[in-house]
């Protein structure tokens, strides 16, 4: 190209050098950012496969001595699934209603601005602080035992802002014409929201909730303070200490022998598989829903 119109295309050497230099740095930055991701995933998969077997998935750590091989994370998987399910049951209705308030009822009032601001601030609350809060309030002041339920409370606090933001975004996407058409037919506002707005935004909200679940499923610090530890299977999230997968990884990683480290890697692999499946499912739902594929 420059051969045809050299006098227009020419850029002085220094400027071109800078341009190419920055381009190189930008590409380099991306490469640097991807390296830890590849390294983490590679090590988790390659080290995790050593113990990622049926015994690991179906056995607990009960009666497994400090230096013994074997054992598994069944109790932790059960715990994580129950805690995350309970956290969703708590946070999804509250988050959804808050989003409905922000979008449908708030009308730019002062309360709406406060809530909106604090939803943002809440996303920045450190997970360990949410755990400490449940510890202080639920366990120390109300005298409740360490339990999966206490952990779910802490996780719910962490999920809440993510759910609100995701649901709010989806509700804002619902075209106003739909609402107005419904009002024109004499449908009251609340029925319009329940029958028209929410179904329209439904899949988007499901995606958002799944991403929120994926986010809290890997949280360790709040569980440490509220669920405590156990090596046995405890299927009742309301009574007694439970285990969680992240907690299991933390516990095993802190033990100074190779069999425990192997279990930690296998636990990390299980955790990442669960989280990636949630992420993938959320992506697929968005993909199937995208307008291009709509019949």
């Amino acid at each position, binding site marked *: 190209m420059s051969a045809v119109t050299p006098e227009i295309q020419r850029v002085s050497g220094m400027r071109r050098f800078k341009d190419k230099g920055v381009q190189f740095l930008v590409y380099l930055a991306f490469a640097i950012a991807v390296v830890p991701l590849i390294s983490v995933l590679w090590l988790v998969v390659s080290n995790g496969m050593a113990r990622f077997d049926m015994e690991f998935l179906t056995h607990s750590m009960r009666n497994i001595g400090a230096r013994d091989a074997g054992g598994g994370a069944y109790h932790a998987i059960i715990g994580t699934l129950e805690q995350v399910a309970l956290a969703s049951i708590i946070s999804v209705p*509250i988050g959804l209603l808050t989003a409905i308030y922000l979008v449908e009822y708030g009308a730019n009032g002062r309360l709406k601005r406060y809530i909106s601001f604090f939803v943002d601030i809440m996303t920045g609350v450190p997970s360990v602080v949410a755990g400490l*809060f449940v510890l202080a309030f639920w366990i120390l002041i109300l005298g409740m035992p360490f339990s999966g339920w206490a952990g779910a409370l802490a996780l719910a606090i962490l999920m809440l802002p993510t759910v609100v933001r995701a649901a709010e975004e989806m509700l804002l996407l619902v075209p106003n014409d739909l609402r107005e058409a419904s009002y024109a037919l*004499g449908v009251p506002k609340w029925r319009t929201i329940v029958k028209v707005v929410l179904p329209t935004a439904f899949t988007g909200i499901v995606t958002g909730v799944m991403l929120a679940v994926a986010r809290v499923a890997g949280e*360790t610090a709040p569980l440490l303070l509220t669920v405590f530890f156990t090596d046995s299977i405890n299927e009742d999230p309301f009574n007694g200490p439970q285990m969680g997968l992240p907690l299991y*990884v*933390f516990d095993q990683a802190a033990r100074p022998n190779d069999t425990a480290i192997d279990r930690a890697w296998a636990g990390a692999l299980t955790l990442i598989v669960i989280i990636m499946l949630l992420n993938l499912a959320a992506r697929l739902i968005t993909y199937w829903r995208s307008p291009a594929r709509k019949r």
Partner: protein
Amino acid sequence: MATSTQTREGGSAPQSRSAFRRSRGDGPFRYASTGAGVLLLGIMAAIAVFLIVRAIPALQANTASFLSELTWNANASEPKFGIAALAFGTVVSSFLALIIATPIAIGVALFISHYAPRRLASALGYVIDLLAAVPSVVYGLWGIIFLVPFMRGPSQFLNDYLGWIPIFGGDQVVGRSMLVGSLVLAIMILPIIAAISREVFLQAPKLQEEAALALGATRWEMIRMSVLPFGRPGVISAAMLGLGRAMGETIAVALIFPATFTISFEILSANGNSIAANIANGFGEANDIGRGALIASGLVLFIITLLVNMAARWVISRRKEYARVAA
């Protein structure tokens, strides 16, 4: 949204539209959704209140100054604990992580917004988001098993050749150092800084960009003249949000930091601890006063991160152009 003003004036003046407003379900539904919003505010307030309530007895039992004491003997019969060393470690390690992560995150954001091929951009952005999906505890495991041994060489190198710079000084280079902890923190906060910066860069006025290119600017000159000035406040607040994340990050640093109680800028020596790491490490053996002390330290962490986050949100909310930028 326009209808809600009608609902507010409803009840008093019976107009023809009142049939629409008077539906029996409307009141409860409206109160439920408002109540949920208020509950959310209540939770934030409750976090502060209950942390304070549980912290006070421990602070009263403390025989040393909470603000200046360096040690943490909260479980002793004469409890002695202070936040100084922990707060120092939290702030220094977070800033170090920020210094490492921000330039790379800006590069990543520019790559996705202005350099990568359009068709690939969103997929590559998703790859970076995956970094955020990896749980903290996995980074911690990766950190102690892989990164700590891996960084021994480079750390020793820095100490040997750049040891005259105070932060790289010290006689004993260790694997589990402040530097390695900060590296892991940097990896963990990179996605959020990159994601927000990317959104901001994408909002940069297209006309200005095209005008710069039309006047003969190179791509870098165009970015420097139109994208970066526009994006600066957004990048600053993204960095502050990242800082807040780094300060609250717990499990990864609990596994990596050597958990010492020192105030030293020597990032290659056995220094490094943070409020959050101390909570995770100390909770297991804490007695009643010990738990109160940890809650007091958590309160300090809560306040610091609250201030950092508020400042970040304030910077972002001042610019209308960023209205659609959310994290």
